[in-house]
């Protein structure tokens, strides 16, 4: 508009309706022309938030090839347009100035970074991979064929796309690299084994939106509102409808503030709490009897030689103390035998079998429960003294409200209150839901925590029900995906176990037979494996070549990330890839992580910024103390800047097994590239160099299918093509629509059988974005969930044995007699046309052996497991053991700790003795909503840093007074391994507990901080130890013991000196805390 006199405000005021000049007359031209950039964008692209696993929809607005705004997508059924502070900061994350733009290189012994051209860097990395692989190649280990290298390892993938994880696992496996891990190991691996052995699949049994239908929600081992804020809206919806929300946690958090009932509990004692609830449910007969009798293994009779912890003062029968493991054969059902754990049926467990068990076969139950063969006896009256039901009763008989008070510190009234609420809200008409996260998983008994909740929910009849189930709240954008696909050492895509080294040359048929179930959908295991091999080796995978089964490297035990760190410390592992993970801050025992890396020949780090795991050689804590000297560190380091989620296409799988496709909004700038680009081109370069090779070990690489079309200025591989390979196709190349179409005759190819169907009919189902306003509340047409787009798993259990819903109010699916099929609100999680009245004939096998009443179709007996006769290495029933470090003894048994937990004997991993007065306080770790995991995606963002600028610890006023701590002041925390400083928050949200007659103080602190970035601080994991759950090798960071004193910590060499002083005072030796039995 021209600024002619008629536009002058004073004239507009005098002549127009705005006579006071406070409204329209005062508007400037700029104001008149105001348009939001959300309206003027060139294009809007559908995306998904890269932070946690809720999977909030995002809209990315692009103008002139720049992203100008990222906000929530109101069409998403999960998030409805909302975002937490991290998701809201996505614009700053992706376009703010904190991202590195160019490849950086550190020569051996150098003090500085140098620039390096991207192409040259790729060639150099490829060369190192080939050299190290050649130097460390191993055909056999101890006489068994392994065909691998333990010289190279990789960590990372939970923040990456499924397509990226798929190619990483594919390439590295073909190269013989078995030490492939990611955040799933340290986060929710317990979930996979805990839920997997109980129900047949190792993921959340329900979806977030279903919470609105719960009558009661128990949040425990989770800070739901803080770590999954947008998912928490569904808890609020339930509250609006009158549901009760219970929060059980060591500290009063932002979740507790919105709960109806808050129960403070001692960290590490949830099995007592859950066990007491189980005990009371059983003794007061509040269980859902018809559900329990028909849908669980309650009636099954166990072997005579089974001995429970009540018989052996905290141990089960079969403990082999020398080898630190159990022989689980006495835990089996009477009349059956274990196939999964030993691999050989009628022989006693060998060293090989022990090693196989140690490797974590438990995690292969992510999709397919443990295997039982044989004839089972049952007692439907639940009276037989050796039936599961009676054994369960006896096992938990001493888990009383009084015990809860003594051990957990929870007053009787609160126990009663929670018991009343959950039992009143379970049964036919009402359902209770449980939500948990790493407060449960990260313990030496993490898997058993989850088993305990599974037992309780089965007894109450809440699994497979509307508003019921167990919500495992995973934490990274695609950590479910990186478990499904997976970048994990012990699994192949779809939870197929990595083959184990055998004395004799194992064929594919033998491998299948060992793991295949007789009953249920895991009986098609052969089709799943064969199709995977076909996807990887294409025309070379034939009957004659045994489908290239021999090309797979073998594992010989546990090669978890913590084993890999030890292999690095011992000089065996020489090369390391870090793909969007920061173990120097995020993994237990930061010092050992860094000392391990200091022993490497080369390290490749891919991330947004220079995280601690990339710069430890220059400015890490050991440089400060003098324990490491930069000039003496020979590790060669490559830093590759990564592309953001807006700069690449691909799928994330959220915490509810839902795949959501993201479209590329803009191309990455400068040297930034996606991990898909990186792994594809690395593979291309490596294969180029091996093309002329005649070496047998190179054949898997040369014959690998690696032909992906590329596009764009950077030659970005097509993620859609990778997803299509994952989905699978038939011999004619037509995309498959369901895993039931997979064959074991080589006519089908499928990269991940549980994802088969994501590209059904050649349409990217994960890219569907029908607004939730145009669908019912389940919204099946948004994205695609495995298995088969079912949203409430085990929904057969929502109906009674005859196929009628237990109640109309909670109906999910039901049997339509006239139509001869199952129908309802969700896709049936059972065979669509199998009548409830179907009973398997004698000798039936596979899917035909599942009756019309079995809701847990991935279990080898079709039932929910109250008692786990197979699949876990530390017991068929959850038992309370104290954490590795505890201020109090185990009040329930003479056995203090999990007898088969994995301890690490290393100089920098010493343990505090039980009940040590030198480390008298319990320390627990947690998250803040403003930051994310090890900080790589938040501590460089000013908008998030100003919300939570510094690391702090939280203490009660009583503890503060006792130790001279001041709110806002500094404190030093000392464990048996390290010492750190943090600011202090004195708050009533931390409460001292009365445990066994004495006061126990708990201290809490977030674990997000490290010395790098714009917000810096000491890392929590300097204090933690490498002590692992034996099923899944997850670290115990939720309960350890420390001392706390006011003031900042010592600097330089005085820091390790302080730690040693404390160790001496406590009398710590290399043997402290290492015992099996007490």
């Amino acid at each position: 508009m021209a600024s002619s006199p008629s536009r002058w405000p004073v004239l507009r005021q005098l002549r127009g309706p705005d006579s006071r000049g406070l409204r329209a007359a005062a508007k400037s031209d700029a104001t008149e022309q105001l348009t939001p950039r959300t309206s003027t964008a060139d294009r809007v692209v559908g995306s998904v938030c890269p932070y946690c696993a809720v999977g909030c929809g995002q809209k990315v607005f692009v103008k002139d090839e720049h992203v100008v705004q990222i906000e929530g997508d109101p069409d998403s059924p999960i998030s409805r347009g909302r975002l937490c502070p991290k998701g809201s900061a996505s614009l700053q994350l992706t376009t703010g100035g904190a991202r590195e733009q160019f490849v950086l290189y550190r020569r051996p012994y150098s003090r500085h970074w140098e620039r390096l051209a991207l192409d040259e860097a790729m060639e150099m990395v490829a060369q190192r991979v080939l050299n190290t692989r050649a130097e460390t190649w191993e055909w056999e280990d101890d006489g068994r064929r392994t065909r691998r290298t333990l010289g190279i390892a990789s960590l990372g993938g939970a923040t990456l796309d499924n397509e990226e994880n798929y190619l990483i696992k594919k390439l590295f496996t073909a190269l013989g690299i078995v030490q492939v891990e990611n955040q799933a190991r340290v986060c929710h691996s317990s979930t996979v084994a805990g839920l997997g052995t109980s129900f047949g699949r190792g993921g959340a049994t329900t979806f977030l939106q279903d919470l609105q239908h719960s009558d009661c929600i128990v949040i425990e081992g989770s800070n739901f509102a803080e770590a999954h804020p947008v998912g928490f809206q569904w808890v609020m919806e339930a509250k609006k409808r009158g549901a009760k929300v219970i929060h059980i946690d060591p500290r009063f958090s932002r979740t507790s503030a919105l709960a109806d009932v808050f129960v403070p509990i001692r960290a590490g004692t949830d099995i007592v709490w859950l066990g007491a609830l189980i005990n009371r449910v059983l003794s007061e007969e509040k269980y859902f009897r018809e559900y329990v009798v028909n849908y669980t293994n309650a009636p099954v009779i166990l072997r005579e030689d089974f001995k429970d912890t009540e018989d052996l003062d905290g141990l089960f029968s079969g403990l082999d103390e020398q080898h630190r493991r159990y022989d689980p054969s006495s835990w089996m059902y009477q009349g059956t035998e274990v196939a999964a754990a030993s691999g050989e049926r009628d022989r006693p467990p060998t060293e090989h079998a022990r090693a196989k068990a140690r490797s974590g076969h438990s995690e292969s139950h992510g999709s397919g429960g443990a295997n039982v063969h044989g004839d089972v006896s049952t007692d439907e009256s639940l009276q037989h003294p050796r039936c599961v039901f009676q054994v369960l009763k006896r096992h938990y008989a001493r888990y009383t409200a009084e015990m809860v008070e003594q051990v957990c510190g929870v007053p009787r009234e609160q126990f009663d209150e929670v018991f009343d609420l959950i039992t009143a809200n379970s049964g036919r008409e009402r359902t209770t839901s449980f939500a948990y996260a790493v407060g449960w998983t990260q313990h030496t008994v993490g898997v058993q925590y989850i088993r305990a909740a599974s037992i309780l929910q089965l007894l109450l009849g809440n699994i497979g029900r509307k508003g019921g189930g167990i919500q495992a709240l995973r934490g990274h954008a695609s950590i479910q995906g990186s478990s499904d696909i997976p970048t994990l050492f012990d699994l192949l895509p779809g939870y197929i176990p990595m083959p184990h080294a055998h004395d004799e040359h194992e064929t594919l048929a033998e491998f299948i037979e060992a793991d295949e179930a007789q009953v249920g959908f895991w009986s098609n295991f052969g089709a799943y494996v064969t199709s995977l091999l076909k996807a990887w080796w294409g025309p070379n995978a034939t009957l004659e070549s045994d489908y290239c089964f021999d090309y797979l490297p073998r594992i010989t035990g546990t090669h978890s990330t913590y084993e890999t760190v030890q292999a690095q410390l011992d000089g065996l592992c020489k090369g390391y890839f870090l793909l969007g993970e920061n173990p120097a801050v995020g993994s237990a025992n930061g010092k050992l992580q860094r000392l391990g890396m200091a022993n490497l020949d080369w390290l490749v780090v891919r991330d947004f910024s220079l995280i601690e795991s990339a710069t430890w050689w220059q400015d890490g804590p050991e440089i400060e103390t003098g324990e490491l000297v930069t000039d003496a560190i020979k590790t060669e380091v490559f830093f590759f800047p990564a592309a953001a989620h807006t700069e690449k296409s691909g799928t994330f799988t959220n915490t509810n097994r839902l795949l959501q496709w993201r479209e590329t909004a803009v191309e990455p700038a400068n040297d930034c590239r996606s991990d898909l680009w990186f792994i594809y081109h690395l593979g291309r370069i490596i294969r180029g160099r091996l093309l002329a090779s005649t070496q047998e070990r190179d054949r898997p690489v040369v014959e690998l299918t690696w032909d992906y079309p590329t596009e764009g200025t950077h030659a970005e591989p097509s993620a859609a093509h990778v997803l299509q390979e994952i989905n699978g196709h038939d011999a004619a190349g037509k995309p498959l629509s369901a895993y039931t179409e997979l064959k074991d005759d080589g006519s089908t190819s499928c990269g991940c059988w549980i994802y088969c169907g994501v590209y059904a009919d050649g349409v990217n189902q994960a890219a569907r974005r029908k607004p939730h306003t145009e669908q019912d509340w389940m919204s099946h047409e948004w994205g695609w969930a495995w298995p088969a787009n079912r949203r409430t798993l085990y929904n057969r259990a929502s109906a009674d044995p005859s196929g009628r819903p237990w109640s109309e109010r909670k109906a999910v699916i039901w049997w339509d007699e006239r139509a001869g099929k199952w129908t309802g609100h969700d896709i049936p999680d059972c065979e669509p046309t199998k009548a409830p009245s179907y009973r398997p004939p004698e000798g039936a096998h596979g899917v035909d052996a599942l009756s019309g009443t079995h809701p847990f179709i991935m279990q080898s007996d079709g039932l929910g497991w109250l008692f786990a006769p197979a699949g876990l290495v530390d017991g068929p029933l959850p038992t309370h053991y104290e954490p590795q470090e505890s201020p109090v003894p185990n009040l329930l048994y003479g056995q203090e700790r999990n007898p088969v937990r994995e301890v690490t004997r290393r100089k920098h991993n010493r343990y505090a003795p039980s009940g040590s007065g030198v480390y008298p306080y319990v320390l627990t770790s947690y998250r803040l909503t403003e930051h994310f995991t090890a900080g790589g995606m938040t501590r460089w963002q000013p908008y998030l840093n100003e919300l939570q600028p510094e690391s702090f610890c939280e203490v009660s006023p009583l503890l503060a007074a006792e130790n001279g701590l001041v709110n806002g002041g500094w404190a030093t925390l000392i464990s048996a391994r390290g010492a750190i400083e943090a600011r202090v928050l004195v708050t009533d949200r931390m409460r001292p507990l009365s445990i066994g007659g004495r006061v126990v103080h708990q201290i809490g602190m977030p674990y997000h901080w490290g010395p790098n970035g714009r917000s810096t601080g000491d890392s929590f994991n300097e204090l933690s130890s490498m002590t692992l759950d034996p099923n899944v090798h997850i670290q115990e960071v939720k309960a350890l013991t420390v001392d706390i004193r006011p003031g900042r910590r010592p600097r330089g060499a005085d820091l390790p000196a302080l730690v040693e002083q404390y160790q001496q005072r406590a009398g710590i030796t290399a043997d402290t805390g290492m015992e099996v039995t007490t």
Partner: protein
Amino acid sequence: MTHIGKDLGLQPRMGFFTDSTVCIGCKACEVACKEWNAVPTDGSVLTAESFDNTSALGANTWRHVAFVEQNTEQGFRWLMSSDVCKHCTEAACLDVCPTGSLFRTEFDTVVVQQDICNGCGYCVSACPFGVIAQREDDGRVFKCTLCYDRIGAGQTPACAQACPTESIQFGPLDELRERAAERVDALKAAGEPGARLYGADPSDGVGGTGAFFLLLDEPEVYGLPPDPKVTTRDLPAMWRQAGLAALGLLGAAVVSAGFDRLNPRSRR
């Protein structure tokens, strides 16, 4: 329909209802606002005041979440509430602005025009809530615009869209006030006697606010003034007083001069 000033069209008055009882203290509102409006950071300092490191509204903080830890008779509770510019019905900042930078929009919100503001700062001392402030390296004043650009295009303000639990609700003020009153009744019935609205009463000192709140305790507990009054409210009366005083003085001067003329002896 609630309108203030002249009836200029069919656009109803729009505002915010912030229901602090469902706030989870996540601060998505603070970040979403900053991202949308390119508001600079406001200092990264650990205040050790619970989880509140933002402290107050200002030129670089247009949404601020307060955290109050309380030990009550019913037990411990943690109050959380997101504060914002009130967009008052009687807005003192608007009244005192000499340049016409501050103006009232067609949505009845109060907005600063950055291209007009001359940084005089009159509005800063005028605001009874201490919301509007000057940006140090700039000189001009900044505050919440109630996302004038977004709502002008039929979109939702950034904070309201982001809020995970719909603690921040955007809509026609009439509807929001009705909804809020029902919510207060429901809370009281559920055993929350302290539930009350702040800023919803048109007869309060600022004529009611365009952004009002549901609190569980006294406003002071949340850091809000208990009885805010538009600081220009007494201006007309003050002017009248001053005018009368001036007239009085003038009158006295005239009379005095008149005496002089009538009594020349006094000028000997």
